[in-house]
């Protein structure tokens, strides 16, 4: 029987919803376990889905207990936040849009609505109280949707941040081409953060490999504007301080014309059209020649 005040009036809808959730915990969890949101995420066994559903029911009851049904930051959600995030991520990996996940969450309300209504009618609760309880339930499920969406979004953001960091590392390998010659193939956008990484890895390689020549290949850089040029020149100057000469290679015809129109003066930098030309230049400077097989015979 639903709890009510000693004089028989119904005064506390959130308390009513909380008691209902606790009373019907087992039954709700069993029904939720069959919903796609739980069934497709917790696939090991049905018990696992039921346990997960129970955890969410308990969290909702705790939130109702604290009378914070409208607050996605309510302490009650913290115990299931990770689980909810995992569920949201799993559904979005299964190809569902944010809207579809949201309506799956909304469909969790139905298994709650009818039993709550039945309980209230059995207790002969006044109509106003029934309406207040149903509204509380709707708000509570709405808040649950917000929590799942928030968690899924912040996980997406964390993923993007991780990938951005990975990209910084992955995209700047230093390749030893010959004794004393290293090359860095630059790919993509050379913004300030990237060029800082490039400079650091290149300077470290110059020390490690005892390189006299460093080739910066910009074949994979789609746009060379004044900032990119400035970054290149700074890198060249830093390498020079360490006793290595830099050669910028991979300057395509369109890039060359653009640099001229832009008015950039790369006169202090040795440039070559292709990586092969740059290597030939560096080998020549080192005094190493490439000899055809026929000459050896």
């Amino acid at each position, binding site marked *: 029987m639903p709890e009510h005040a000693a004089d028989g009036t119904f005064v506390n809808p959130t308390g009513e919803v909380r008691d209902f959730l606790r009373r019907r915990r087992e039954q709700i969890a069993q029904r939720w376990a069959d919903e796609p949101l739980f069934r497709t995420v917790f696939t090991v066994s049905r018990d696992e889905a039921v346990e997960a559903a129970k955890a969410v029911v308990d969290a909702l009851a705790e939130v109702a207990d604290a009378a914070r049904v409208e607050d996605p930051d309510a302490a009650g959600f913290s115990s299931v936040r990770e689980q909810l995030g995992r569920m949201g991520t799993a559904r979005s990996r299964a190809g569902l849009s944010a809207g579809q996940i949201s309506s799956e969450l909304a469909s969790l309300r139905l298994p709650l609505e009818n039993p709550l209504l039945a309980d209230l009618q059995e207790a002969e609760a006044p109509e106003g109280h029934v309406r207040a309880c149903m509204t509380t339930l709707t708000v509570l499920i709405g808040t649950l949707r917000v929590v799942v969406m928030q968690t899924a979004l912040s996980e997406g953001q964390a993923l993007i941040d991780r990938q951005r960091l990975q990209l910084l590392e992955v995209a700047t390998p230093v390749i030893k081409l010959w004794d004393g010659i290293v090359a860095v193939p630059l790919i993509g*956008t050379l*913004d*300030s*953060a990237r060029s800082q990484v490039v400079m650091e890895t290149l300077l470290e390689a110059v020390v490690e490999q005892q390189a006299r020549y460093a080739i910066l290949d910009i074949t994979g850089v*789609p*746009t*060379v*504007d*004044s*900032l990119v*040029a*400035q970054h290149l020149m700074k890198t060249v100057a830093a390498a020079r301080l360490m006793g290595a000469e830099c050669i910028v290679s991979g300057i395509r*015809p*369109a*890039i060359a*014309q*653009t640099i001229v*129109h*832009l*008015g*950039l003066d790369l006169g202090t930098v040795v440039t070559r059209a292709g990586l092969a030309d740059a290597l030939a230049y560096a080998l020549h400077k080192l005094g190493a020649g490439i000899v055809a097989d026929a000459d050896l015979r």
Partner: protein
Amino acid sequence: MHTAAGVEARLPIRSDMDLVWVRQHVRQAAAQLGFGLVDQTKLVTAASELARNTLVYGGGGTMESQHLVDGSSHGLRLVFSDQGPGIADVEQALSDGYTSGGGLGMGLGGARRLVHEFAIESAPGAGTTVRVTSWTGRTPRPREEH
């Protein structure tokens, strides 16, 4: 037939990531309107300079791209606007080597040399708007030597 679909857009310029977006959009739009590789590269580079100015000196703003038609020639107009502090001396800002930041001072003047038409409106406290336009199948206008 070149269509304006995918050419006309209004992009925000709020971060370094937006600059990447601006460059990609301009490259795509220019290719779609039939610009050759060299002209595409010039326009993208000019857009990159102007968008960075909007971000760094204007504190962020927008780029609007428009499709123009003149006879058989297609034009791509890019309008960069910000509500930043504005430029007190536009002539000085356009001169090569002048910078109020840490750059090379080639951006604004360089961008002007990379496009067919260039117009700038700015006043201290009133923000800055730069309009550039390039046309397919036209040689660059003759330029005064500095």
